[in-house]
Each structure stands twice: as structure tokens, then as C-alpha cells.
């Protein structure tokens, strides 16, 4: 069993289709911690002590957000900047997150074929996520292949959201095959390498 900490972060959750459905499904998963970051800190007054305590108490950190301008929404960045401190997450004595897993669950507006050298985004999606990947490495964490939904404006919310719930359960029960996942660029609801018991 792993202790899973799931943060959802969408500043306009009421206008969202996919992310709202994901949050609803995640809330139904038992035995994990799931939080809406914009609900926790509507005024951006992040409590560093609380957040670090939460990070210490979990083994898997899942960040769920829509990709805005090739990055996370502002509050996620603020949360990272403040709570992933020097001396805690990295740097001298900064090994408190070592050995934990970091996973992203993102949605993009563009379709999958936009994220190719020939596509209009010109780069693979993983290229845009490099800052997060390197953040995990600097903190001696394992960066798990992200759970991605492209073309989110037209996609079916339910399939992706239910897949997300299964993913969270698998992470909780250590049934996600991390090595097999690592061979893939992204994970989707129909390519989850879950080990059935």
C-alpha cells in the first residue's frame, strides 16, 4: 500500500468538463488524500508548514491540472515555489522527498497529433513537461509517466475520469507497473499498465 496525495488545480473548475469529472471520480476513491488546491488557498496564502507535513506523510504525489501555456496554473507554481523549499526538497539536507513518486495528470486543448515535430505545437508533449521531470529528479523522486488527455474540449469526460480513478487505486495498491509505464511516452485511460491481482 502507498499513501497517495492527489492535488487538483483548476482556477475555473465550474467551466471545466474533464477536470471537474476527474475530481468527482477521485473523491470517490477511498484511502487516498485528494485536495482542490484552489479551494485550499483561494487567496494564495500557502501554508508552507502544512504543505511540507502533507508531503512527508505521503509516498505518491499526483498533480492534476489543465496545461495552460505549456505549464501549470499559477497556484501550482506558487505551491511548488513555496513548499518545495531548499533544505526540504533539494539542496543541503534537502532529501525529505527522496524515494517518493511524482506523477502528473494533465489535460490539453490541442489534439495529440499537434504534439509532434510536424504538428503545430512542434514538440512532443514530454518536452513541455521537462521542468516537472527535472524537479522530480533534483528531489531524488521517481517521475512517473504522466496521465494525459489530449483534445480535452471534445473528449469523453467519463472514460478519462474513470481511468483516473483506476489509476489512483492502482497507485494506492502498488499495482501500477512503473517500469512498463516508463516505456510509454504518456498514459491514457486505455493504456494503463495495471497489474491485475
Amino acid at each position: 500500500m502507498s499513501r497517495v496525495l492527489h492535488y487538483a488545480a483548476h482556477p475555473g473548475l465550474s467551466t471545466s468538463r474533464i477536470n471537474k469529472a476527474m475530481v468527482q471520480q477521485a473523491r470517490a476513491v477511498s484511502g487516498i488524500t485528494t485536495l482542490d488546491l484552489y479551494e485550499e488557498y483561494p487567496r494564495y496564502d500557502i501554508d508552507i508548514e502544512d504543505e511540507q507535513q502533507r508531503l512527508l506523510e505521503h509516498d505518491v504525489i499526483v498533480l492534476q491540472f489543465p496545461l495552460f501555456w505549456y505549464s501549470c496554473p499559477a497556484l501550482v507554481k506558487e505551491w511548488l515555489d513555496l513548499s518545495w523549499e531548499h533544505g526540504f526538497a533539494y539542496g543541503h539536507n534537502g532529501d525529505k522527498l527522496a524515494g517518493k513518486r511524482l506523477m502528473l495528470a494533465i489535460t490539453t486543448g490541442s489534439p495529440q497529433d499537434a504534439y509532434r515535430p510536424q504538428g503545430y505545437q512542434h514538440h512532443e508533449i514530454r518536452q513541455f513537461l521537462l521542468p516537472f521531470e527535472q524537479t522530480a529528479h533534483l528531489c531524488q523522486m521517481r517521475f512517473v509517466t504522466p496521465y494525459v488527455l489530449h483534445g480535452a474540449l471534445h473528449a469523453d469526460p467519463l472514460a478519462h475520469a474513470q481511468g483516473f480513478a483506476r489509476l489512483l487505486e492502482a497507485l494506492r495498491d502498488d499495482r501500477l507497473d512503473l517500469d512498463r509505464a516508463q516505456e510509454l511516452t504518456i498514459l491514457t485511460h486505455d493504456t494503463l499498465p495495471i497489474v491485475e491481482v
Partner: protein
Amino acid sequence: MSDFLLLAFLFLVAGVAAVPIASRLGLGSVLGYLIAGIILSPMLAVLNVDVVSIQHFAEFGVVMMLFLVGLELEPKMLWAMRNRLLGLGGLQVGGTTALIAGVVWWFGADWRIALACGLILAMSSTAIVLQTLNEKGLMKGDGGQASFSVLLFQDIAVIPILALVPLLAMPGAHHGGGDEGHGASLSLVAGLSGWQTTLVTAGAIALVIAGGMFLTRPVFRYIAQARLREIFVATALMFVVGIALLMTLVGLSPALGTFLAGVVLANSEYRHELESDIDPFRGLLLGLFFMTVGAAIDFGLLFGDFAVIIGMTVGVMLAKALVLLIAARVFGLRGSEKFLFGLGLAQAGEFGFVLTSFAVANAVLPDDLAPRIMLVITLSMMLTPALFILYDRVIRPRYDREEPRDADEITEPGIAIVAGHGRFGGVVNRMLLAAGYETTVLDYSAAHLDMLRSFGVRGFYGDATRPDLLHAAGIDEAKLLIIAIDDKDQATELAHYVHHNHPHIHIIARARDRRHVYQLFAAGCRDIIRETFDSSVRAGRSAYEALGMHPFEAERLARAFVKEDRHALYELAQLWDPAVPDHINEPYRLKARELMTDADLRARGGAFRERSARGWVPPTEQDQAESSARDEAPEGP
């Protein structure tokens, strides 16, 4: 009666006419008064006025000034000054006495006369120096502090000198008792033996200190509750006069006594109120004093013996400046501060007048020498403003250019004045203190201040709407004024006064309601905080959340509401006119209606909500379709 009125009128006319001109020419008020006195002197001679007795009366201004100086000086600051006080002061008095006495002796005078001359001329003029330093804002600098130390030491030194002078009496030349200067005719210590005198004197000082510490606060609180301004002023005067009287009775300098009382009261919440009450008396009396100095010049004697008198004056001032500059070097005064100290104290002073007449009465000085010494003292005082001008225009600019200013030149950090320490001002004050800022709190409730003191908050009693009290609280040096007094009209008046008279000060005003916002806006205030608005908005936001709105959306909606509301308030505040009733003020009425319609639309159509949710909204189907038709990047990242 008519004599008194005539005399008062003459002095007032002379002062009112001369001082503003002198100030405008940059000569300082002291020189203006002195010139006014000179102009007056023929008239006073015709009227047969006893200028010297007026001067003795006016010297009380010096006593008041030292009380005020004491109020500015907390006991721990006085203690920190002790080395300079004794060292610099001792060096100055001892050195100057020795030098002048030596020169006089070298000219062939008896050593006793020489020593008396030295002692008399070693004194400087507290009145002129402190007045000028305060006027020019030099009091808190290094040179100003050193000058003050020396003046205070001289005040103390006068007591042993008065005891010493009779011992210098010329054998055989006995004048026989006579009038002892302007000493008190009453005395508590006459006929007592040495140790009894000491005991009574120590008792008197202890009484002043104990009275200042334990008696003044209950008395002032009692008076403050009556809220009668003139009785408070009368009480303040009563204290100062009473202390001066007590000191005179035991043969101490009254200025020294009131100075001590001032120091004791420096920590009191009534300090600023006392300052502003006593200050006008001090100003008027000192002005009168300077005029009498000018009027007392004996031109017959001066022109009869011009070269000698001028020579003596210049010689005395050179000697004093020399000793002062040496002392300044020994005590490490640097740059222009050294010259401020050296030139500023180079004159002889009013204590010299006292000592001279005392010496004549005790047959120490021959009758023909005394008037000359008096004249030299007067002339040296007349020349002092010129030396300050020399310092201001020639010496300081040179040093200002040459060396970077010392860090301790900044006399006081940016101070915030908090007017009204209730529920509102109290929070502001606590926040400022928590962040390490210095504040001066003014409040008109003695009981409330007592409560604050018990929690360690320093506040001062007084009506913040009074300009003189604001002045005493340091409005000239302050950066910020927080108006948090309860009375709406008084708050507006205060904002208006400070905005127009101290435009450099940032004003943060607490408004009681919307109408008060308009009034404060019209008074020139631009940082206006409605006292209940922010908490109401928070309550509204809590209501949104309680009704199931996402907290972040509630926050955004609340912000949008604040923005719209402030915008409307700002628009209306610009149109509002205190002179025109709202229902007649056409532009105001139209704008108010327009804004109201806006609000109604919002309520019905939810346009407000839609606007505040702008951002993070995905493009609509139609937008997407149109952009794919033009083969652009349709959905963004």
C-alpha cells in the same frame, strides 16, 4: 495700566515688524528680535523703562525652554550623554575661564578680577543657541547635542560659581551687602549651615523628580477629564512656575530644575500636550528677552570707547571659539559639526549678566569695568546669528560636498502618527509596531491611554485636530498620518488641515460611511478606508462559500465586487460637492442613477458574474470552428 499696554504694544510691534523680515532674509528670528530691541531702545529711554528688570522677567523664557528640552530627552538619553556633559562641559568652562583670565591678568589686572572675568565670559547663551539650533533643525545632530551638553553643564556650573564669586572680593573695597543681582529675596537656605543646605537642596531635587514621576500623572488625568483647555495650560504653567520657584528658594538654577522635571515627564503620555501648551509662552518670553538684550546696548559707552570694546568682544569670541574647537577635537566631533559647536557657543551669555551684577554687588569687579563687560556680552550675543549664518552658508556647504554624511545624521526615522487609538487606529498601530516602525499615538481619552500604557503601548494625550499638538507630535518630520478618530467632522477637518499645510505627508483616513468618503475626498485625502467595508465584503464572501460556491470563485467574485464598488465610489466622489445638496447636484445625480442601473442589470442578468469569471474559460464551439476554418492553431495548449 496704560503704561503696561503701551510697553506691551511697543514690544509686540517691534517683534512683529522685525522678525518676519529677518526670517525672510535668512537671518533667523534671534537677530530679528535683537534688531527690534535696538530700534526700540531710544523710545524705551524716553519712556524711562527699566529694561534690565524686564529682561529678568523675560529670562523665564529660558526656564521654559529648558523644560521643553527636557521633555524631548528621556532619562536614558540623558544618562548616555553623561561623558560629554561632564567632559566637554568641564573642558569648555575650565579652559575658557583659564584662557580669558590669563589674558586679562597679562594685561595687568588683579588675578581676582581676571578670574571673575574668565568665569563670567565662559558662560554661553542658552537662549540664543538653543533657539537657533531648534529653528534650523540642528538640535539632534552631533554638534547640536554637544552644544546642548555644554549649555547644560554651564547651567549646573553657575551654582558653584555663585558660591565662589564672593570669595574673590577685593580686600578693602567693600561695597556692603547691596542688591544680589536678581537673586530671590526669599530663601529656604538662608542662615542654614552647610550640611543643612545640602540636605534641603537634595530634598528639593528629590521632590521635583518624585513629583514629576508620581504626582503629575494623576493631576493631569484629573484635569484632562475636565476637557478644559485653558485649565490644562494653567496646570502646566503652574508646574513650571512652581518648580522654578522651589529651585530659586533653595538657590539652584530654576532652568536646571525645570529641565529635570521635563526629563522626568519625557515618558509621560501628556508630553506632547505639555509641549504645545508651554511653547507659545516660551516663544514670547524669549522674544522679549532678545529684544531687551538689543535694547540694553549702551551706545554712548560703545562709541566712546569703540576700538577697545570691539577688540574685547572679538578677543573673547576668538578665545571661546579656540577652546571650543580644541574640546571638539578631543571629543571627536567631526567635519561641519565641529564648527557648529565651535562657532555656535562662542558668545557670552545671559548668565554673564547675572554673574556680572553679582560680582559688582560683592565688590569683585570695579564699577567702571562692569558696564564694559555687559556690553561685550551683549555684542557677542548680537554677533552670534552672524556666525550661524557663516556656518550655514560657508562652512556646511563645503563639508556637505567633501564628505559623505554620517549615518547618524538622520535624526529620526520616518514616523507615523496615529490619531485616535480605538478599535481602528489600535490595529493599525499594532501592525506598524509589529513591523518595527516607530509610531506616535495621539488620543483624547485619558482613561483609554492608561489602559494602553498597562499593555506597554506608548500613547500621548491630546486633541489631534489641534495644529500645535500635531506640531509637537512631530508632524514636520512624519511621513504618514493615520486618521482614526471617531468624530467624522473632526477627521475631515484634520485631513483638510494636514493636506493643505503639510502636503508631503501621506494621509490614510478612516471613513465612517460613504458620505464621509466624499467629504474626505473633497478635503484632499486619497487613501480612504471605509471602516466596515472590508469586513462586510468578507462576510459576503463567506456567504457565497456557505451557499456552495467554490472558494476561489467566491474570492474572485468578492474582488470584482470591491473593484466595481470602489470605482462607483470614486466616480461619485469626484462629482460630490460639499456646498451643493445631493438632490440639486445634477451631475452627481445622473452618475448615481447610471451606476444604479448597472447594478440592477447585474443582479438580473448575471453579467457581473460572467465578467468576473473571465479567464480560464475554454473557447466556445463557434470560436473553435472559425479558427480551424482558417487553419490556425485552434485550441491553444
